């Protein structure tokens, strides 16, 4: 069902493959609710994480996912490794492979690094975020969360608010949602909108009020605080005023609209605390679902490797 042993991006997946991952994740979610949260399918397999950017939740989520499948999980710590001594990414990855790893979960500030490594390595490469390209497991867990509440993607209107230009989460979600038939609206200042994004079949809004009107799902994105100094924004205060998700604005969306955030949140910058902690928020559910989705990805890729 899944064709590639690598997960490089949502771009590379078909809608059938996406649904297959979501169905598999549903099975693993049940495992997570048991008293003994461990199953044996990846016993004897080794998963190594190689993160060139700080991350807590994604790395921890992959670690737990691997362990719940009975795989060995090792973190290759970049800050203490030979990378700092000038080793190339290629040599680092080949070293990890030589140590006998079956999967490498990689995050890197440069787009295309997982693709570059997938051409060199025999082990499976899982993209945990590459530059402004993709973060496929985040989109999959977002889909999984939406599916839990909305059942059907066809006809759903999803509004994504924030720093689209620098957001791999937004990119992966755009590909995923459009492939499954949802309507995607992007809301952000023109300085943070990527070039010619409309060609992906999305609607672009610069006004949040127009953009979230009657939306079924609202995803807010983390705003990197350094965007202000780079001239993308005059101030974080102005950003919150124009694009912050407040309870008042949330009323414009459908009454049962879901509020999502990939984390970590900047409360008071892109989202008001009352919304983040409110009844429509599924933010913590996303985190839990991330485990099930990552278990599904590891499990299915292991199947391809056989």
């Amino acid at each position, binding site marked *: 069902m899944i064709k590639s042993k690598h997960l490089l991006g949502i771009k590379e997946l078909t809608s059938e493959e996406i649904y297959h991952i979501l169905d598999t994740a549903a099975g693993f979610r049940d495992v997570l609710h048991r008293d003994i949260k461990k199953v044996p399918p990846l016993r004897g397999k080794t998963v190594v994480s190689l993160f060139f950017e700080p991350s807590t939740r994604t790395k921890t989520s992959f670690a737990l996912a691997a362990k719940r499948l009975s795989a060995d999980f090792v973190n290759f710590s970049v800050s203490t490794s030979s990378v700092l001594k000038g080793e190339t990414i290629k040599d680092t990855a080949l070293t990890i492979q030589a140590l006998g790893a079956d999967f490498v979960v990689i995050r890197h500030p*440069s787009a295309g690094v997982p693709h570059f490594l997938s051409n060199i390595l025999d082990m499976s490469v899982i993209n945990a975020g590459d530059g*402004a390209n993709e973060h496929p497991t985040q989109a999959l867990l977002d889909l999984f969360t939406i599916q839990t509440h909305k059942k059907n993607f066809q006809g759903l209107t999803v509004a994504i608010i924030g720093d689209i230009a620098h957001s791999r989460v937004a990119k992966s979600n755009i590909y995923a949602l459009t492939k499954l038939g949802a309507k995607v609206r992007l809301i952000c200042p023109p300085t943070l909108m990527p*070039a010619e994004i409309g060609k992906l079949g999305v609607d672009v809004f610069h006004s949040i009020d127009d953009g979230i009107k009657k939306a079924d799902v609202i995803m807010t994105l983390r705003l990197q605080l350094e965007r202000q100094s780079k001239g993308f924004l005059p101030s974080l205060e102005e950003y919150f005023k124009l694009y912050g998700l407040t309870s008042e604005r949330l009323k414009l969306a459908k009454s049962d609209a879901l509020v999502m955030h990939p984390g970590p949140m900047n409360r008071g910058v892109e989202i008001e605390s009352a919304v983040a902690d409110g009844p429509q928020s599924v933010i913590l559910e996303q985190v839990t679902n991330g485990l099930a989705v990552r278990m599904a990805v590891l499990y299915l890729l292991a199947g391809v490797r056989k």
Partner: protein
Amino acid sequence: MSILITNGRVIDPEQNIDGYNDLLIKGRKIQGLYPKGKGPSADKIIDAAGCIVIPGLVDMHTHLREPGFEYKETIKTGTLAAVKGGFTTVCCMPNTKPVNDTISVTEFILEKSKKEGSCTVYPIGAITRGQKSEELVELEALLKAGCIAFSDDGHPVTNSLIMRRALEYSKIFNVPIISHCEDLKLSEGGVMNEGFVSTIVGLRGIPKAAEEVMVARDLSLCELTGGRLHIAHVSTEGSVKLIRDAKARGINVTAETCPHYFSLTDEAIISYDTNLKVNPPIRTASDVEAIKEGLKDGTIDVIATDHAPHHLDDKNKEFDSAAFGISGLETAFALGLQLVDQGLFDIRQLIIKMALTPSRIMGIGKGVLTVDSDADITIINTEKEYRVDSSTFLSKGKNSPFNKWELKGTVEKTISMGKVFEWN
């Protein structure tokens, strides 16, 4: 020693010659041109049947990397790559280590070229000391040492006042100021063209405006000063329009583009192949069309290579940190020939853009087959098809996005100052 080239189709735009002729070389000079079969006997006969016999190509934009980056290329390997590609003259850019901003570096390049070079090398001096956009180099001294033009290539002259002064002061010597047009703030962090493809692959884009605002600035300064401006590596539709308009207004500007700007679009970068990373970046289909139109109507005078060889280690890495540049000498003519095959212009026009005009801009008397001129001649089989294999390049730089391309037009022999190089 005398050499007679016979049976070939001799094309020399300078003399308006296109026909089957015999060409006689004696020593380092062209001795005579005769109707086919009428040439005198010679020590060596070269049968050019089925080939064109044309003036040796002139590349006015080459990076030979020496001194300082010998692991990427040397004068020896770079000039070998040149003759392999049909070039008998290369003009080397000054962004070496140290920068060619002093007599000693210029003299080093010339001496090394004389000793180890396979073709004629003309150094281009820096415009500003250390290419820092602060102080002008000593133009007179560098010209006397052997430089023939000035450029801070690799870097723009960021200081508009210094650029004005360079265009003004160089009028004493009537030499071109070659501008690498790039607004460094607009291009900051960018690694490819900004557009739909950069959005799709998630790489930082370089907007076309980063080039065009500097083209516009330099055209204004050229108009203001009456200096001689040459715009290097034109890559965008907007730049073509600006230059076309400037020429129509009588501004003293010439311009070049490179084969990759009319042969590739940014869509290829979906593969993240770092051999496609070049500055300015490969643009979109509409830019390619505009570049071709500019070549056709004379807005763009020259096809140069911007030969930028790199070591494999500088390319075999993540796209963001890979080096910018394409090893271009050994594929340039065949890519130019595609324009002829597409019907854009005839082969004579191609020779004008790759030999005669660059020579005229640089004022070096090359790119012609006139009697008594240097015996720089290239013999090309324009019908022979081949598959590019960059691992066989004579350049140290194997960094070609055209690897594995099926091209037509093989350089059979290159004669550089009377010395014959042959392949196949």
